[in-house]
């Protein structure tokens, strides 16, 4: 897995990301087009520019590059500027694990002025959770955030691996977060929201990021975990700008067809 910096961040600003698709286009004489998509040929590329790295941080990156033997071996890369959850606006999708006594109703007014909030009710006699499991290294620092409110004061739990944070909901929208890591040996980690028996809440904008605190909410469909990403290049170049200060740029490539 690609190493996090000691701050818990995966990258620094500026961060560049490129999405590339492939479309076969047949243009007729009158200007009309016939198009065929090539879904398997999609490529995502990140350019990570690091400055002010310490000796230890640079060594970590260099050792990882050596372990991957440049562009040869694949690794799991988490989008540093993305929401790792898939279908963050639609918990009815199969990526979400919904406990059997939870009911979900979409189309509610959300705090961003849209209608992407969900009403979640627990009709069971015990706590029930809505969660998503990511095939991502559990040893990373993650931040789970979600907007929530309830008609009556309600205590819910935010779940991050085996950790749980209690949150008290009021009638106004508030954003709640939990930051932490999972089990060091695990290759997957679960994130979720736990409702006590009989609770009914409004939910919007669940987001997981590979960093210590939450950034602005980003709606997602595909999620941000990229298994089998590669370094684009076979060369790792860095510049030492002072004692214990280094800078480098790495390019990460993820191709659907690889």
């Amino acid at each position, binding site marked *: 897995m690609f190493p996090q910096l000691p701050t818990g961040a995966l990258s620094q*600003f*500026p*961060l*560049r*990301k*490129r*999405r*590339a*698709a*492939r*479309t076969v*286009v047949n243009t007729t*004489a*009158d*200007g*009309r*087009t016939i*198009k*065929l*998509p090539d*879904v398997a040929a*999609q490529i995502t590329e990140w350019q990570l520019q690091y400055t002010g790295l310490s000796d230890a941080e640079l060594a970590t990156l260099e050792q990882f590059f050596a372990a991957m033997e440049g562009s040869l071996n694949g690794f799991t890369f988490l989008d540093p*500027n*993305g*929401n790792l959850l898939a279908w963050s606006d639609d918990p009815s999708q199969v990526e979400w694990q919904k406990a059997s006594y939870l009911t979900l109703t979409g189309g509610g007014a959300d705090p*961003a002025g849209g209608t992407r909030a969900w009403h979640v009710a627990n009709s069971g006699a015990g706590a029930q959770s809505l969660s998503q499991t990511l095939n991502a290294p559990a040893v990373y620092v993650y931040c789970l955030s979600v907007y929530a409110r309830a008609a009556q004061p309600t205590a819910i739990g935010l779940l991050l691996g085996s950790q749980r944070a209690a949150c008290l909901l009021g009638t106004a929208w508030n954003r709640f977060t939990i930051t932490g890591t999972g089990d060091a040996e695990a290759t997957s980690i679960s994130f979720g929201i736990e409702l006590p028996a009989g609770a009914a809440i409004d939910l919007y904008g669940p987001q997981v990021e590979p960093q210590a605190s939450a*950034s*602005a*909410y*980003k*709606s*997602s*469909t*595909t999620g941000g975990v990229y298994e089998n990403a590669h370094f684009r290049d076979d060369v790792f170049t860095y510049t030492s700008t002072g004692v214990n200060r280094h800078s480098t740029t790495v390019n990460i490539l993820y191709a659907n067809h690889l």
Partner: protein
Amino acid sequence: MATFPKLKTNAVAQYPATRALRYQNQTVRFLDGTDQRYRDASGPLHRWVIRLSELDEGELAEMEGFFLSNQGQFGSFVFVDPWDDTSYPSCSLAGDRLDLTAIAEMQGQTILTVVENRT
């Protein structure tokens, strides 16, 4: 039918924005210097270059999601011309590549080019 996403300000584009109108005509030139011209298509096609900056992470993700859902230039959508509010029912992105840059927090940048399709 999908619609081109708006920013949180409800705007479609920012300054500087570029708009182009393209006709498709043919010209046959003769030895005596005269020429004969004719239309090679039924009408003009529009093209807009939308340069966006100072986007927050949510807006940048919205543009990325729109590119993904369209699979680059494959999909088509409704585009409302920010100059005159005319709705163009069949438009596509011009290319199969999208560059997204986060200069700093809430300083995202990207450029999308929209072309009107011949229908």
